[in-house]
């Protein structure tokens, strides 16, 4: 025993700077798999986004080979799925650490990963190869369900729910076997909602208003409720690990944020019900609760300023913390500013479904979700490389800094460019031409629209360059590094506060 205790630090030192899966627990080894697929899908999202963007500028490009509707569908579906992979991976990464016990049902979890990955691969192949032909019951089950953003055929829907239930079992059973905390309690309850809400997207109704009514439950409630809470849990755990923030404070704030987010976000759903044929009272409900949605963000601003003063941002993983900060700003601007800009019905009448929505979507999804997943990738790679030093003065730091800069500049540039195009659509197509078919085309021929699309494409290339650099950095960061990470502790945080 003594020899083991003495040898362990030596072996740890020898392995530092190399990828060492033996140092990871079962949940973390599984998380690495999820993160790897997430990065591949992130690449697919960028690639198909570039193709779809190019088709706005050159409509003949890949016509009848890889049509715009397919590129756009793969672009958006890849985004949703890579984010889900990132979230699931993040939860598997933290579950053993947070519960203090081994992952329950690790074999089942591994099986679920391979089933999900195989299903995603088949769905993407079908998206790319089989998208023309008659729309009938068989095509709903095997090819495309037809609901925007969640086009996966019905067989895949059942698979997704089954995999999420396995995920729920792994996480809940592990916490039940180990110890509970505020973070784990919120997380487990949120996973029930995550799996349950997806069922709302599986109803079938020939009435398009009813269909859209339930479909928005998945889209809105996932993105503006359950995902936000899931990210809140990951962020809470990430702040404890990177800044040494006090658990009790983080947990208390998690409860406050969850209450504020659910309080405003659930009925904020109404802003999607303005124009789908639902009763008129949704205009008032949606408008009112959408106006409340920035409150959690204002709360975050006060708390972030308070905490930055207390902790002074001393941390053990600079890239991860930088991406957590990018998350705070991105969430505020993407979801808060860009969301509130056009969420009230008097304005949304002109803007919904134009590039204005795409502008908001790009910044909000990147700011609120992509950033935190990338932060988790950096937390994971630090541990996988043997808990190496990733603070100030790390070798090749320019890579992660430039990846951060290029990705943020690229996405912000696309957001602004899309806003220009969206404004022209709102003005010409909606306000002047009254949403006519002729107005739709006239707006898309307009000079401002075309210029906006051109600059969106340029900034798309910047984003792609940032993604390549990010992948290169994730593969190489910490390689050959022999210095150990300085772990922040609550005690250190207390000392800093003093």
């Amino acid at each position: 025993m003594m020899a083991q205790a003495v040898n362990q630090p030596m072996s740890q030192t020898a392995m530092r700077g190399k990828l060492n899966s033996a140092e990871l627990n079962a949940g973390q080894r599984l998380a690495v798999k999820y993160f790897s697929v997430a990065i591949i899908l992130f690449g697919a999202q960028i690639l198909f986004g570039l193709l779809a963007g190019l088709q706005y500028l050159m409509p003949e490009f890949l016509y009848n080979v890889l049509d715009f509707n397919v590129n756009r569908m793969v672009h958006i579906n890849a985004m949703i799925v890579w984010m889900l992979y990132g979230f699931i991976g993040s939860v598997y990464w933290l579950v053993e650490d947070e519960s203090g016990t081994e992952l329950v049902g690790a074999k089942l979890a591994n099986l679920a990963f391979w089933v999900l990955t195989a299903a995603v691969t088949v769905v993407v192949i079908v998206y790319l190869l089989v998208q023309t032909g008659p729309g009938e019951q068989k095509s709903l089950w095997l090819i495309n369900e037809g609901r925007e953003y969640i086009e996966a055929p019905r067989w895949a829907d059942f698979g997704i729910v089954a995999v999420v239930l396995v995920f729920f079992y792994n996480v809940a059973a592990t916490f039940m076997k180990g110890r509970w905390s505020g973070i784990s309690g919120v997380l487990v309850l949120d996973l029930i909602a995550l799996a349950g809400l997806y069922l709302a997207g599986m109803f079938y109704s020939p009435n398009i208003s009813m269909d859209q009514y339930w479909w928005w439950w998945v889209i809105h409630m996932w993105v503006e409720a359950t995902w936000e809470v899931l990210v809140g849990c990951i962020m809470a755990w990430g702040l404890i690990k990177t800044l040494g923030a006090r658990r009790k404070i983080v947990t208390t704030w998690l409860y406050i944020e969850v209450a504020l987010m659910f309080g405003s976000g659930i009925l904020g759903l109404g802003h999607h019900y303005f124009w789908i044929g639902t009763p008129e009272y949704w205009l008032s409900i949606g408008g009112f609760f959408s106006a409340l949605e920035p409150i959690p963000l204002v709360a975050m601003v006060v708390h972030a300023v308070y905490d930055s003063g207390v902790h002074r941002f001393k941390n053990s993983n600079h890239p991860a913390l930088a991406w957590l900060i990018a998350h705070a700003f991105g969430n505020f601007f993407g979801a808060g500013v860009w969301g509130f800009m056009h969420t009230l019905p008097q304005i949304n009448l002109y803007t919904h479904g134009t590039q204005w929505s795409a502008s908001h979507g790009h910044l909000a999804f990147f700011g609120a979700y992509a950033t935190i997943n990338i932060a988790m990738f950096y937390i994971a790679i630090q541990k996988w490389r043997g808990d190496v030093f990733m603070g100030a003065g790390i070798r090749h730091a320019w890579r992660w800094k430039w990846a951060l800069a290029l990705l943020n500049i690229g996405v912000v540039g696309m957001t602004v460019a899309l806003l220009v195009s969206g404004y022209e659509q709102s003005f010409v197509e909606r306000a002047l031409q009254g949403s006519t078919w002729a107005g739709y085309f006239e707006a898309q021929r307009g000079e401002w629209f075309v210029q906006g699309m051109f600059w969106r494409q340029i900034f798309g290339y910047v984003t792609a360059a940032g993604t390549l650099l990010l992948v290169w950095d994730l593969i190489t960061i910490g390689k050959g590094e022999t210095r150990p990470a300085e772990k922040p502790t609550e005690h250190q945080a207390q000392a800093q506060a003093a």
Partner: protein
Amino acid sequence: MTDPVEAQQIMLATMAGALVVMFGAIYAALFAWSRLRKRPAWMPAAYLAYLCLAVATIVLARSLHLSGFWSTVVFVMLFGYLLAPHAIWHLCVGTHESAHKTADTDSRNPLNGGQTNE
């Protein structure tokens, strides 16, 4: 409530909406910064940001043709945004103080085996 904004005012209304959230955040940040660093001189800047928030809100409300009940809602919400940073600040101080007190108590309590994460 639902008369659409005039075509000429789409830009004005959307920018006012964006500025409501921006000035709300600037007000909150300056307020918190002033309290944190104990620099009361920053507080007028915070309230100036709030004033800008109020102006942006009124411009937004006018361009959206809000009147009657909805005007009252706007003023109640504006008042709420004035108080929100104060309330959140008290929560920050309260949660941090309570956490430190708990930590002190835990460190003195020999029965605390650290079995839970709380």
